[in-house]
C-alpha cells in the first residue's frame, strides 16, 4: 500500500478503522478534535457507529458498555478530558474490558493551554483512577508510529483484556506526515465468550462487573490483575536505543520530545561528543532493564520531557543510583529546542569529548 499524507489525529481514526474498530464515543477538545471529526465522517461508511457524548465521563462509560458488549471501541481526548475519564478507565481495568484510549496531551494543570505537553505521564503510567491497576501505555514519536501503535493497541487490548492508552501530544496530533497502513484492512476482533450478547437461552448470564463485596474475592481479583501486569512487564516492553554502550551521556526521552533530542544528538556528535538515547515506546511496561546496558563509565542520564519531571522517576528507578541523573524540561506548552537540549548536555559533559 502506498503512503498517504495525513494529520496525526486523522491518522488515529484511519488506523482505528483499519484495525477493525467500529465504535467511537468521544467529546470535542483541542488539540484532538480532528479524531471525532474524522470518525463522524468515516465510521458510517464502514457500518460503524459514532456517538458524540454529552461529556467525557459519559463517553468513557459508553466505551465500558460497548466493550462489554464485545465491540472493538475507541475513545480519544486531551489532558483535562482524560482526567474526566479516569472514573471509567478504572472500571474498565477492574472489569477487564479491552479498548483503546488516545490522549493528545496539552499543557496543564487545570484548563492549562492547548499547546503540546507531556504532563499526563503520571496519570497514564500510575493510574489516574482509583485502585491498583495499570494501563498498557504506548508512546509514538511520529505519525507512522502512531498508526502502528493504534493498530497494535487494539490487539494488545484484546489479548490482555485491558484498556490501552496511546499517549501522544498536541504536536503529533496536529502535524502531517506520510503514513502507510501495513496491515490487512479486514481484521476481525477475536471471539469474546465473556461479552454480553444476550444468553439466547443457551448459557448462564454473562456479567460485566468490578464489584467484589467480599474482601477475599477482591484480593483474589487483584492478584489476578497483578499477574496480568507482570506478564505485560515480561512480554510487552518496547524501546528504541541508540549508542548507549559507548555514550558518555545517555538521553532518555519519549514521544515527539525524543525526535527533538535526536536532532540535538546529531549536533553533539558533530562536535565529537559520545551521546546515546533510550526512547521508551511502552511507558508501561517501562524498559527498566535497558538501562543496565548503558556504558558503566557514562557520566549521566539526561531525561528530557515537556513537563516538570515525571518520567525521570522511572529513570531513577532504572539506574538504581548507579548513574547520576539530570533533567531538562519545558512546561506550559513550551517545546524544548535542540539547541537548549544540547547546551544542557554540554554543561553535564564539560570538556569530555
Amino acid at each position: 500500500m502506498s503512503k498517504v499524507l495525513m494529520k496525526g489525529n486523522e491518522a488515529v481514526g484511519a488506523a482505528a478503522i483499519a484495525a477493525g474498530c467500529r465504535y467511537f464515543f468521544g467529546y470535542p477538545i483541542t488539540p484532538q478534535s480532528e479524531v471525532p471529526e474524522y470518525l463522524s465522517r468515516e465510521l458510517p461508511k464502514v457500518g460503524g457507529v459514532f456517538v458524540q457524548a454529552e461529556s467525557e465521563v459519559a463517553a468513557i462509560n459508553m466505551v465500558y458498555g460497548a466493550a462489554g458488549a464485545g465491540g472493538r471501541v475507541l475513545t480519544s481526548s486531551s489532558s483535562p478530558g482524560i482526567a474526566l475519564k479516569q472514573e471509567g478507565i478504572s472500571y474498565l481495568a477492574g472489569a477487564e474490558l479491552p479498548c483503546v484510549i488516545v490522549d493528545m496531551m496539552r499543557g496543564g494543570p487545570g484548563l492549562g493551554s492547548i499547546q503540546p505537553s507531556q504532563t499526563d505521564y503520571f496519570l497514564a503510567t500510575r493510574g489516574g483512577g482509583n485502585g491498583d491497576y495499570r494501563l498498557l501505555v504506548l508512546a509514538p514519536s511520529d505519525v507512522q508510529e502512531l498508526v502502528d501503535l493504534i493498530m497494535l493497541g487494539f490487539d494488545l487490548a484484546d489479548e490482555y483484556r485491558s484498556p490501552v492508552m496511546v499517549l501522544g501530544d498536541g504536536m503529533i496530533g496536529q502535524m502531517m506526515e506520510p503514513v502507510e497502513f501495513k496491515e490487512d484492512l479486514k481484521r476481525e476482533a477475536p471471539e469474546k465468550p465473556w461479552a454480553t450478547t444476550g444468553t439466547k437461552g443457551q448459557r448462564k448470564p454473562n456479567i460485566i462487573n468490578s464489584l467484589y463485596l467480599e474482601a477475599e474475592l477482591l484480593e483474589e481479583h487483584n492478584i489476578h490483575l497483578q499477574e496480568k501486569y507482570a506478564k505485560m512487564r515480561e512480554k510487552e516492553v518496547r524501546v528504541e536505543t541508540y549508542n548507549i554502550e559507548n555514550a558518555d551521556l545517555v538521553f532518555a526521552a519519549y514521544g515527539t520530545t525524543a525526535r527533538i533530542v535526536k536532532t540535538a544528538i546529531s549536533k553533539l556528535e558533530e562536535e565529537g561528543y559520545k551521546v546515546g538515547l533510550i526512547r521508551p515506546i511502552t511507558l508501561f511496561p517501562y524498559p527498566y532493564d535497558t538501562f543496565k546496558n548503558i556504558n558503566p563509565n557514562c557520566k549521566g542520564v539526561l531525561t528530557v520531557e515537556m513537563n516538570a519531571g515525571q518520567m525521570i522517576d522511572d529513570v531513577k528507578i532504572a539506574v538504581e543510583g548507579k548513574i547520576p541523573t539530570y533533567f531538562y524540561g519545558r512546561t506550559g506548552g513550551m517545546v524544548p529546542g535542540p539547541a537548549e537540549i544540547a547546551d544542557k548536555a554540554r554543561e553535564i559533559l564539560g570538556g569530555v569529548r
Partner: protein
Amino acid sequence: MAVIFQKTRGLTDVPTHYCPGCTHGIIHRLVAECLEELGVLDDAIGVAPVGCSVMAYKYFNCDMHEAAHGRAPAVATGIKRVRPDNFVFTYQGDGDLASIGTAEIVHAAHRGEKISTIFVNNAIYGMTGGQMAPTTLVGQKTTTSPYGRDKETQGSPIRMSELLATIEGAVFVERVAVDTPANIRKAKKAIKECFQVQIDKKGFGIVEVLSTCPTNWGLTPPEALKWLQKNLMPYYPLGNFRRPEEVK
C-alpha cells in the same frame, strides 16, 4: 399436575439482600415478568446502578453490566449501539438517576436511545444509610438533612418524569407506584408498554416507580406504604406523561 403458578424465569434463584418490606423485590419481579412475557429475556442486557439495587446483576436472569454511579444510561448507550437487536434496560434509584446521573439520563433521552429505564424513587439514599436525595421531600428528615429538607438552601424535590417528558426523544414516560395490588398491576402494564416502545424501536422509555424505604424512613413496612400514599403521591402524581401517539 397442572401448574397454576410459577416464578418467572427472568429472576435467578438466589435470595436478595433487600431489607424486609422494601419494594425493590416487587419491582424486580415485574421487570422480570415483562421481559419473559414479551419474549425478550434471552436477548436482554441489563445495567445495574450503584445504590440499593447495586447487586441487581445477580438477580436478573440475563446478561448484565454493573455501571458506575449514575452512568447506567451511558453504559446502556454503548451496549445498544453495539447490539441494536438486543433488548437493553437500566434499573436505577433516585440518587443514581436524579443526582449524580442527571446528565446521563437527560442525554440518553435526548438522543432518543432505544433503551428502557426503570427508575425506582423512594426519596432517599438507601444503601449509604439514609442521606438526602434530590427527590427527598421538603421537611423530610434524613441523615444529611437532620432538621428536615430546607427549601431555601437545599431546594425543592426534583420531578424527573415531568422533566424528561419535555424531551423530544423520550417517547414513553410514566410514573407508577407499587403500594397496592391494583397499582402493582398498573405498574406492570406501564413497564410492559415501555418495553414495547423499545422493541418497536420508537425511542427512549422510562417508568418511574414510587417505592418505599422502611429502614431509612424509620417506619414499619405497612406504615411506609401509607407514608408513600400520604406524602410522595401528592408531590409525585401518578400517570402517563408521554406515549408514542402523542409524540407524533
